[in-house]
């Protein structure tokens, strides 16, 4: 009985004590220090297509902020629109043995061997948005196939012959070997093969250039005066597509896609675009940071993972658009 009393007293005392400690100093997060410790002296190298447009600028801003917060080094090596420069940059990075290389591929093949070399050297490779056919530890980026399916189905709804429309649509692609083009095109054609509502009258590449996109679209509209819709593969290029449509004075439905930069919302506002499928760069940036964080903490060897975080598509139309639909680079740099 005495023992019981003592124990009771002891328990009571310790409970009171503990509560006092908690009330005064909180509790130590046992997980945090070891995790932060794992970030120390780690290095992430980012090799974008070019640090001169919204997508890589956005990702870099978000990744840079996280690196500063978590305490690992973050370097950018600009491929400057050249696969050769990009390959050299990755090769150079491999020599420096960073922990992770984040790479945005120009096309589905060029970097494949170099990426394999990086993995052989024990460097994790994360591919962003534009995938290579060579799978590495992680892919973070747009779901091109899903976007193609969505756009094709929308075209059936908007332009299908059963809607009393001509059913004629045109595609303005990116470079023929880019992930954005090949996967999206495959999805569009497989959806449209199932139906005879829609006819693709032209499928040309605008090569990510708005002047080229404008010239192509203009010719296609001349050729098919009853053209009903266009699926463009990138909003920055499709300002040219939209300009040609505006000039023709015709009511042609333009669906495009992009990172959801402010220019996309401006395009919707001034009527250049009818619908934008956004792959939400700030969200992708967060996904990238999470993948980087996981890989830096994991003990697993490079090349042993194979996972993908496909960005959920965010559909923006003039009706659904609000002030948070799009982002600006300054917001991302400020950590917004």
């Amino acid at each position, binding site marked *: 009985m005495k023992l019981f009393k003592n124990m009771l007293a002891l328990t009571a005392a310790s409970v009171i004590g503990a509560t006092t400690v908690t009330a005064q100093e909180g509790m130590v997060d046992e997980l945090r220090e070891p995790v932060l410790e794992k970030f120390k002296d780690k290095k992430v190298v980012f090799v974008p297509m070019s640090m001169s447009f919204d997508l890589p600028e956005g990702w870099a801003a978000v990744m840079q902020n996280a690196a500063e917060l978590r305490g690992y080094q973050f370097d950018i090596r600009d491929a400057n629109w050249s696969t050769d420069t990009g390959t050299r940059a990755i090769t150079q990075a491999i020599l420096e043995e960073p922990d992770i290389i984040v790479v945005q591929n120009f096309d589905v093949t060029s970097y494949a061997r170099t990426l394999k070399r990086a993995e052989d050297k024990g460097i994790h490779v994360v591919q962003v948005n534009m995938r290579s056919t060579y799978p590495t530890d992680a892919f973070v980026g747009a779901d091109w196939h899903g976007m193609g399916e969505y756009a094709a189905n929308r075209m059936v709804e908007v332009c299908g012959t059963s809607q009393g429309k001509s059913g004629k649509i045109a595609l303005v692609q990116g470079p023929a070997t880019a992930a954005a083009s090949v996967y999206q095109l495959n999805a569009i054609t497989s959806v449209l093969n199932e139906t005879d509502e829609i006819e693709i009258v032209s499928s040309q590449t605008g090569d990510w250039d*708005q002047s080229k996109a404008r010239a192509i679209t203009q010719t296609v509209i001349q050729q098919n005066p009853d053209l009903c819709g266009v699926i463009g593969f990138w909003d920055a290029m499709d300002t040219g597509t939209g300009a040609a449509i505006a000039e023709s004075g015709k009511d042609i439905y333009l669906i495009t896609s992009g990172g959801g930069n402010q220019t996309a919302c401006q395009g919707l506002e001034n009527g250049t675009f009818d619908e934008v499928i956004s792959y939400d760069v700030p969200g992708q940036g967060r996904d990238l940071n999470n993948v980087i964080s996981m890989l830096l903490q994991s003990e697993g060897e490079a090349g042993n993972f194979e996972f993908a975080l496909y960005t959920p598509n965010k559909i923006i139309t003039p009706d659904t658009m609000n002030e948070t639909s799009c982002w600006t680079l300054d917001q991302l740099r400020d950590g917004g």
Partner: protein
Amino acid sequence: MTTPNQSASNRRGFGLGNIAVTQELVVAVAAAIMFLVFSATLDNFLSSANLITLVRNVSVLGMMSLGMALVVIGRGVDLSLVAIMAVSMTLAIVLANGGWSFGLALAAGLAFSIAIGAVTGFLVAYVEIPSIFATLAIAAIVYGLGRGGIADLDVNNLPPGVDWFIFLGRGSLLGIPVSIWLFAATALLLHLFLRKTGFGRFVYAIGDNIETARITGISVRPVLMLKYMLAAFTAFMAGAVTAASVASMNMRIVNSTMIYDVLLVVVLGGIGLTGGRGGIRNVLVGTVLIGLLLNAMTILDISYTVQNLIKSAVLLAALVVEALLNPRDEQTSQQGDI
């Protein structure tokens, strides 16, 4: 002294009865045949709207080619034209977005382009660097300035409220797009300049034989400088039309094959790379042929890779025809090509 026209046609290869077979004629006939074939086989090709679109889509290329033609006629080549076009216009847009009035910003862009032309001209005329190397380096420097110093982004959008400027790219006068009028006006001015002014004659003389021109008493170096400055001016004009039509300027075109397309138009039209030959008419013929090709290939929905293959094959064919019609002789080979 023979006129440039005569000297050009006299030297050009074999005659066919009374008609000298010039490359210009070959290309004009090829263009005519293509035109007939496309008209017969492609629906809507022969509509006036399509023909206007056709010319309009090559008007920027045509304007650049006018500048290139001027340089090539005076013996030389300017590989920096696309860089000048993109970066000078980007400068104007960035300044305008930074608060300058748009007119003033455009003037600054124009001044920048002409200054670059002057530097190129100086390097070629006074430092005597072969034009191909001088302009290659200038192109890289100008692009570097653009990407490193002038703007952070490749694509820069026009400021709002410049409808008068957009009109240059999208508007029409008498049913003809303004960009075609501008192309025509530039062509006419350069034509008059080359044929009717002493300076224009000097360009031909220098292109034909620079030593002779020098001995004759022509101030060769200032003429060379002015030539590059004028070419830079046409590049700026082409940039203005491009920016006006898509409401933005994209510096990435510097990395594209556009400069080769420009050269293709010039060579295809029959302006010999050895200099001293050809005129504005050649550029027009070359531009129309490329326009026909591009238009038909788009209508036929030919893939981009195959389009490039066809364009390259045409360029090669044009070079072969040029080599056959203008055989290298002792004089030209001693002076060296560009």
